[in-house]
């Protein structure tokens, strides 16, 4: 069922503009992202307390939300750097004479089970399980080694000591706990933790593998679309995700614009899908670019698992798992680009992979566009808004002004024409806090965090 819209944007009077459009209050000017590198993924953990980003340099930066304190009540909700670590290093495949980029393609958090946090991060070929834990005490007074950790000469040990824990400055440590390698020939585009929390899957262009989080030397191939003759290859896997509650069900999307739902109970190798979601092509819109723009760049289950959202080049679609022949909702993200497809093909922008996210209550969906614009669609009121993530356009704590792109006709003062859009500024990755209206928007090497509340 579609959840009820609870007016989540209407928190205080000045959070909506004169038209009553969706408005998010800008929380901070911009998060200080340590040294500039292009952010390649953004992900909140299950409580929203932590926010992880991965970048092109193979780094993972984790931000932690400031806890409310009596002396600084206004600081509630600000995210500060909690831990930074190098997750992946550039590698060289000597057999293929090929450099493996360190760029983090995806990060997925595991649900928290003890004081430590766990996350999976992946580059093109290798998935790693990282443990992020705090330490504020250290043991002192060992018998067999000195303070620097050097072993002592046993002859000098004359008495027995009991080591003690002494407090020290808080330290956040990230340690690689598992390295899942050598299972992907092609580039990994997705990882998804199963609802059993024991297994996860990793998907590349042609195959999907199922792993146990404890076992690194073996994985099960659950989908393989590689044709025996590679010359017949016409379709690739673009994204994959587990159902949020049914551990046997997962979906994967393809470059032909289809979504396949598979049931792992039916067979070990899910070559035959249980459901195929596909919308028949509108013949009036047919062009050379039809297939390219229908290629799905992201697929996400909603929180209940009843719906799936897909993003293709020009639209976001919401599908009901019970209806395969067409989506129940289609939202135009930037339809004005339809007339620009030739140029976008020429400059390769048409192959950009935009992601999409649900808000906590599944009533609003968000996805990125060009010119540092990102879009939100209210599924109940059918209202939509275009916002901009930029340093220049808004003062700290000021309301984000909705932006408009001029489509034909005369351009109004506050509008921006399609021709002046900057296609090098693209918002591919965004994240929405699991329960609150806090969003994280990655714009090249800047991370913007917006929220609806006024502190």
């Amino acid at each position: 069922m579609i959840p009820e819209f609870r007016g989540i944007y209407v928190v205080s009077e000045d959070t909506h503009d004169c038209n009553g459009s969706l408005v998010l209050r800008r929380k901070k000017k911009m998060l200080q992202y340590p040294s500039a590198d292009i952010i390649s993924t953004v992900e909140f953990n299950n409580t929203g307390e932590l926010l992880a980003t991965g970048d092109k340099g193979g780094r993972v930066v984790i931000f932690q939300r400031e806890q409310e304190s009596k002396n600084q009540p206004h600081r509630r909700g600000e995210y500060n750097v909690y831990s930074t670590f190098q997750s992946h290093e550039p590698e060289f495949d000597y057999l293929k004479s090929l450099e493996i980029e360190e760029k983090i393609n995806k990060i997925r958090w595991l649900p928290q089970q003890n004081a430590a946090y766990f996350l999976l991060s992946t580059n093109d070929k290798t998935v790693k399980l990282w443990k992020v834990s705090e330490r504020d005490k250290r043991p002192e007074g060992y018998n067999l080694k000195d303070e620097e950790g050097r072993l002592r000469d046993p002859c000098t040990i004359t008495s027995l000591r009991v080591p003690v824990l002494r407090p020290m400055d808080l330290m956040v440590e990230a340690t690689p706990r598992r390295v899942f390698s050598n299972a992907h020939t092609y580039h990994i585009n997705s990882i998804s933790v199963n609802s059993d929390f024991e297994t996860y899957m990793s998907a590349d262009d042609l195959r999907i593998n199922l792993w146990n989080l404890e076992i690194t030397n073996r994985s099960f191939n659950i989908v393989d679309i590689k044709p025996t003759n590679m010359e017949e290859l016409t379709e690739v896997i673009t994204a994959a995700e587990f159902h949020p509650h049914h551990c046997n069900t997962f979906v994967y999307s393809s470059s032909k614009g289809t979504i396949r739902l598979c049931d792992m109970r039916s067979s070990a190798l899910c070559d035959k899908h249980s459901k195929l979601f596909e919308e028949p092509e509108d013949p009036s819109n047919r062009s050379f670019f039809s297939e390219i723009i229908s290629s799905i760049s992201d697929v996400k289950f909603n929180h209940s698992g009843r719906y799936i959202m897909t993003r293709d080049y020009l639209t976001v679609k919401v599908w009901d798992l019970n209806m395969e022949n067409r989506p129940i909702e289609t939202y135009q993200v930037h339809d004005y680009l339809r007339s620009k497809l030739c140029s976008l093909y020429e400059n390769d922008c048409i192959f950009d992979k935009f992601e999409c996210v649900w808000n906590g209550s599944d009533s609003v969906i968000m996805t990125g566009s060009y010119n540092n614009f990102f879009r939100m669609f209210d599924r109940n009121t059918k209202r939509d808004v275009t916002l901009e993530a930029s340093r220049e356009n808004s003062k700290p704590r000021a309301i984000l002004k909705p932006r408009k792109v001029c489509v034909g006709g005369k351009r109004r003062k506050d509008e921006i024409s399609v021709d002046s859009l900057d296609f090098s500024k693209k918002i591919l990755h965004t994240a929405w806090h699991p329960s609150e209206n806090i969003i994280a928007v990655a714009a090249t090497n800047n991370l913007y965090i917006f929220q609806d509340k006024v502190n």
Partner: protein
Amino acid sequence: MDTMFTRGIKRKCLDPEVIDGALVDLKTLPSYTLERQSMLDMSLVKLQLCHMLVEPNLCRSVLIANTVRQIQEEMTQDGSWQFFHAHQTSEPAPVDRLVSTEILCRPKDQSEEKHIDDTYITYSEELEVQETQEISEFSTVASVKAAQNGSSSFWEIEGPQENRVNLQKSIDHIFETLENKNTNSMEDLFSEVDTTYYDLDTVLTGMMGSSKMGHCDVLENLPPSPAPTNCKAELNEIDHIVEILVES
């Protein structure tokens, strides 16, 4: 050119009845054929660049290859593919090889030599079979492109007269190469076609002469519908030339 590449909409803005009252298949319209050709050229360049990488973005490569396949299928249906195909050999990597996704994701050095040989043999066979057909295809494409001359200053880089001279030269080239055809001197054969192709390219599309302009700009500069009468006249004229050439 908001309607560029959108067949459905194009149908509306270009009333088929204008053209001699007869229904004209949209796919044979000059502007459409030219758009398709540019799209094909652009895609082939992209595929060629994919080949230079050991591990290109597979999704992108597959999408481009599918686009080329789609255009190829369409051109095969309306007969213009054979023409293009025959002249494609001048490219370092022929179309079939580019479209083949296997090559896209495997190290380049494997069986490269063998593959090229195979392809060349296929081409030579096709040249033989389609010798006559090719000429008529050629005329279609030529007329289509020549038709643009009258309506846009951009196309006046080379006058129509010169065009015809070059056209004749090119066709002579084809005959020459066909006559000299000899499986042992394959390389010579295609080096001949090589220059022919580029000459044709310059003459017919003006692409070479205006490196500053992208494919899209070229298209955007074209009028949405060339003057129908002019087009028809040109078409007949060049058909006639080709007829004479074939007969001689």
